[in-house]
């Protein structure tokens, strides 16, 4: 049996190249891991549970594309038909080739171009129940499956809205070439197999045989030559696709597999560019889901800085400053990303490169002993701009009879997160040390903060040996312990999830439970992990106030759609930002809780002129 033809060369060369490239990439990524992570990896791949978890995730996300299914069934089906369909074609094709060739090792091209080499006819009636017939059916079915996805992909180019995507990525040259090859692979396969089946009057399944017979009938000319031409084209586009893969977005296919394994072994993103961040960058499929998630895009019309463009420019080794700096780091894109790339940490890596050169001098901060207490309360800089929050908190502390200490009563030493968001970690760490010393000196067992920005950095960077709570959690705990009694005011309120508390701190339920006790909670269109940013984010560096206002107005519109009496948030920055533009009253959850305590007759709003009335 002849098992070679010149046309298999382009495919074979492409395959050799891509296998070499993937092996080299894997080798570099694993070699460049820090020693700690190497230990984690080697322990992880020897733990059956972690391996199983990785395989499950690879199957669900890499082949089935579960997250895209959840987003939009059409989008999910399109990606599944390509990934899972192609995967099954390879597996089944290999099995089918074993029927005709018993050797353990086949040339890799042999299953791919099997129909060129094998075209025997199934003549007798019972033969449709034989193994070859089964494979012919299944292979044609899978080809049809992939082609259906291809048709959807074509439609998506024109009507991305049907796929739940308002905007798609603007691709560069390499991506376009690779995409064209990918789109040509399966039609070429169909034509090549059909013409061959038609010419030999056999060898095809329900799709290729019938299409082949039809094509032979309607097209004049030497059918064998036409078939041969398509086999060549098929091999060429496959080979070219493989060669383009490391230079295009399709590198995400092999990269994502390793990323899933890394993650399941417990390897974390680093603060600086590392093997992990490089792997994340190459795992981006540039699907563009992040573009629709970005408020700067849909509310303010900025469409050049989204995660997909950040990651692409990182891969091209040059991130323009404005891409790194124009971002609220709200985490919405990260939440939407089907690959689960930690986009915010990638952007912060670039910001650290920009901001690390500058130095600070905080020698003016003097350390005086703050005193002792059971609970230390840190309002945070922003809460000093919304004094009703710390006043309400003090009133509640007094009501509950807590031995508390208002650590930053006379002005805060900043928690350091705003500096970190600007990429100035070194300076931030100086502030962190100051605050840590102060907090330790109080010998408190619990740190309560009113600011989610502080809350996030307290938990992530401070390494404090005590409990840390945001005031929404703390107040709920006070209520549950019976230290404060609340009476519902029965006002319709909508709750806004602050970015750093929700997506950043994973606290969604505590404020809702608390609000449920004191008011009638109405829902909003986008909440919890999908919540909108207020637009006041300190991470947004160079954007003008007008642009920020657009984001704020858009978020307000969405939040106030159900016409609540009060817009409640749990962050002084959100409160400050919304108050500026909202016609509806904006309040912090602590104020509402304070006003819901029977017997505390002075509402917070009127107390601003006379804080002592509340605090005493």
């Amino acid at each position, binding site marked *: 049996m002849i098992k070679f033809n010149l046309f298999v060369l382009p495919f074979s060369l492409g395959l050799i190249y891509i296998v070499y490239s993937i092996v080299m990439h894997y080798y570099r990524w694993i070699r460049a891991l820090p020693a700690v992570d190497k230990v984690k990896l080697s322990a992880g791949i020897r733990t059956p549970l972690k391996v199983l978890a990785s395989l499950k995730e690879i199957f669900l996300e890499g082949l089935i594309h579960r997250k895209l299914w959840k987003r939009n069934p059409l989008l999910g089906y399109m990606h599944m038909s390509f990934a899972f369909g192609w995967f099954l074609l390879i597996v089944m094709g290999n099995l089918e080739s074993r029927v005709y060739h018993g050797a353990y090792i086949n040339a890799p091209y042999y299953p791919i171009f099997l129909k060129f080499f094998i075209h025997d006819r199934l003549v007798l009636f019972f033969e449709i129940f034989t193994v070859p017939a089964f494979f012919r059916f299944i292979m044609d079915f899978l080809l049809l499956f992939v082609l259906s996805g291809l048709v959807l992909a074509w439609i998506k180019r024109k009507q991305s809205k049907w796929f739940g995507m308002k905007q798609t990525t603007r691709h560069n040259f390499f991506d376009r070439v690779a995409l064209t090859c990918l789109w040509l692979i399966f039609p070429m396969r169909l034509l090549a197999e059909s013409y061959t089946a038609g010419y030999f009057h056999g060898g095809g399944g329900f799709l290729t045989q019938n299409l082949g017979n039809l094509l032979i009938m309607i097209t004049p000319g030497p059918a064998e030559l036409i078939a041969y031409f398509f086999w060549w084209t098929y091999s060429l586009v496959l080979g070219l696709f493989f060669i383009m893969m490391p230079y295009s977005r399709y590198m995400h296919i092999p990269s994502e597999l390793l990323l899933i394994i890394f993650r399941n072994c417990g390897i974390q993103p680093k603060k600086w560019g590392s093997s992990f961040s490089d792997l994340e960058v190459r795992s981006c499929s540039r699907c563009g889901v992040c573009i629709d998630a970005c408020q700067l895009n849909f509310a303010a019309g900025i469409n050049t800085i989204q995660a997909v463009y950040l990651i692409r420019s990182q891969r091209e080794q040059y991130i323009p400053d404005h891409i790194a700096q124009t971002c609220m780091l709200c985490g919405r894109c990260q939440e939407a990303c089907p690959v689960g790339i930690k986009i915010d940490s990638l952007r912060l890596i670039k910001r650290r490169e920009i*901001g690390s*050169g*500058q*130095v*600070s*001098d*905080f020698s*003016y*901060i*003097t350390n005086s002993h703050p005193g002792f207490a059971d609970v230390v309360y840190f309002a945070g*800089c*922003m809460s*000093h*701009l919304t004094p009703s929050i710390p006043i309400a908190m003090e009133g509640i502390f007094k009501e509950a009879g807590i031995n508390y200490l208002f650590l930053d009563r*006379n*002005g*805060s*030493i*900043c928690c350091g997160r*705003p*500096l970190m968001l*600007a990429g*100035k970690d070194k*300076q931030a760490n100086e*502030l962190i040390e100051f605050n840590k010393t102060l907090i330790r000196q109080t010998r408190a067992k619990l740190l309560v903060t009113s600011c989610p920005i502080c809350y996030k950095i307290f938990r992530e960077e401070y390494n404090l040996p005590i409990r840390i709570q945001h005031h929404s959690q703390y107040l709920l705990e006070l209520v549950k312990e019976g230290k404060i009694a609340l009476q519902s005011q029965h006002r319709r309120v909508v709750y806004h999830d602050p970015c750093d508390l929700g997506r950043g701190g994973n606290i969604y339920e505590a404020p809702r439970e608390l609000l449920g006790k004191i008011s009638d909670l109405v829902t909003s269109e986008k909440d919890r992990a999908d919540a909108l940013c207020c637009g*006041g984010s*300190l991470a947004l*560096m*160079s*954007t*003008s*106030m*007008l642009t920020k206002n657009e984001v704020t107005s858009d978020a307000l519109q969405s939040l106030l759609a159900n016409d609540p009496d009060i817009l409640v948030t749990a962050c002084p*920055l959100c409160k*400050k*930002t919304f108050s500026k533009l909202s016609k509806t009253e904006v309040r912090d959850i602590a104020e509402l809780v304070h006003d819901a305590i029977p017997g505390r007759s002075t509402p917070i709003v009127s107390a601003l002129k006379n804080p002592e009335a509340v605090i005493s």
Partner: protein
Amino acid sequence: MIDFGYTLTRDRQLDYDHGDFRYLKLVKSLEPSMDLCIGCGSCTATCSAAGFTNFNIRKLHTVIRRGDPESIKAELKKCMFCGKCQLVCPRGVNLRNLILAMNRAIEILG
């Protein structure tokens, strides 16, 4: 020098012909909203760092405008970057980025 028995305070008159306006030009190009400032001083009044020391953003802004950037170099390091200033600014000046831009200008121009 002859000792007359008294001293003169340093001349504080500004010479606009000999000011160093390279900083102003660069900072303005990096953060154009600088021009919106009316010098009300709200930023300085709310400043977290100013609670501990005599750090004064309005002064930095004025000094750079007058072409005398030398004095800001040490001062600028005191900023904690908390962002309260830009939240209270009635003109919507992007003050955090202004501080960044000043830092950048010092980095570039020395």
